[in-house]
């Protein structure tokens, strides 16, 4: 769901940069207060993990591909604000160095994957694991569910952003200027393929890593 350049019109691109700037500012302010020096290596690992897990494109045979993001996992480990920063770093490098996701769409991509996804996933995890012992299986399941929903919320938003473009920008003859597919196509496809396939990949990755970390040091996933 890395929206490339040319798919979102100037209004949408500008809007999401305008939304993300204060979010990044608040994120650095809060992380400044909450992140401990000993957590810095974990922030680096989390950003790197998110970067590399997004390289594992999962095919829908004969169709498209998609991938996990790791955004909920990083949020469980470091909190949603630190996750926002970690995933933003991964998305910025992907866009500039590898052309994965557009520069004009970077605000929107960060909103979907570095803001909404970690926050949605984090609070779902917190709710589902409420009062669960650190070493309980409920935490593993909560992490999987949070990963599944977190990725799907992000995919749904991406579908809306794509689908709004033909409404916002078209020629007199009705040809789209940017993404050519409207809401009726973009939302069902983005939501459908993540509900059916990619969400499960995110769920399994998130649950497995939480299970592993739980065995290493249960306090990590508090």
């Amino acid at each position, binding site marked *: 769901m890395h929206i490339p350049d040319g798919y979102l019109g100037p209004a949408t691109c500008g809007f999401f940069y305008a939304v993300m700037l204060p979010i990044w500012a608040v994120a650095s302010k809060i992380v400044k207060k909450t992140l401990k020096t000993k957590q810095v290596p974990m922030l680096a690992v989390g950003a790197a993990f998110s970067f590399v897990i997004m390289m594992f494109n999962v095919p829908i045979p*004969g169709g498209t591909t*998609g991938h996990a993001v790791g955004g909920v996992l990083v949020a469980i480990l470091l909190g949603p604000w630190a996750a926002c920063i970690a995933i933003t770093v991964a998305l910025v490098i992907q866009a500039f160095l590898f052309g994965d996701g557009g520069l004009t769409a970077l605000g929107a991509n960060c909103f979907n994957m570095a803001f909404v996804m970690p926050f949605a996933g984090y609070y779902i995890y917190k709710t589902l694991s409420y009062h669960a012992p650190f070493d309980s299986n409920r935490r593993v399941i909560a992490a999987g569910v949070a990963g599944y929903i977190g990725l799907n919320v992000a995919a749904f938003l991406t579908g809306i952003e794509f689908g709004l473009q033909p409404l916002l920008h078209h020629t007199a003859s009705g040809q789209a200027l940017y993404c050519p597919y409207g809401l009726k196509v973009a939302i069902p496809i983005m939501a459908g393929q993540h509900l059916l396939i990619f969400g499960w990949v995110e769920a399994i990755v998130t649950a497995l890593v939480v299970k592993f970390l739980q065995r290493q040091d249960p306090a990590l996933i508090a």
Partner: protein
Amino acid sequence: MKITTKLWVGMAILIALSPLGLILPEHFKAGSAWGEWGADEVQALVGYVPKGLAKFASLWNAPIPDYAFKGWEEKGLPHLSFAYIISAIVGIAIVSMAAWLIGKMLAKKGD
């Protein structure tokens, strides 16, 4: 072994396995991610290239486009897999250093 050390070992395994993200889609004949087509693919899908898309699609020339070296596009899976692994290593190095630096600048001292 420290937990972060173990996680870096895991990262090395993921780097080695990363070409799966290239090979599996190829094997199962899966194309681009939805909404991430090049201009020619859009032309084939909807019969025209939207004007704004044509204008902005190649706004940025990434140094390692799509995790492949420039000019290697037709070289076949083994070469592309090699480029993919190098991309993973380079990307992880830069991402983790940038996140580490930001973390160092922000984190509170003392604990």
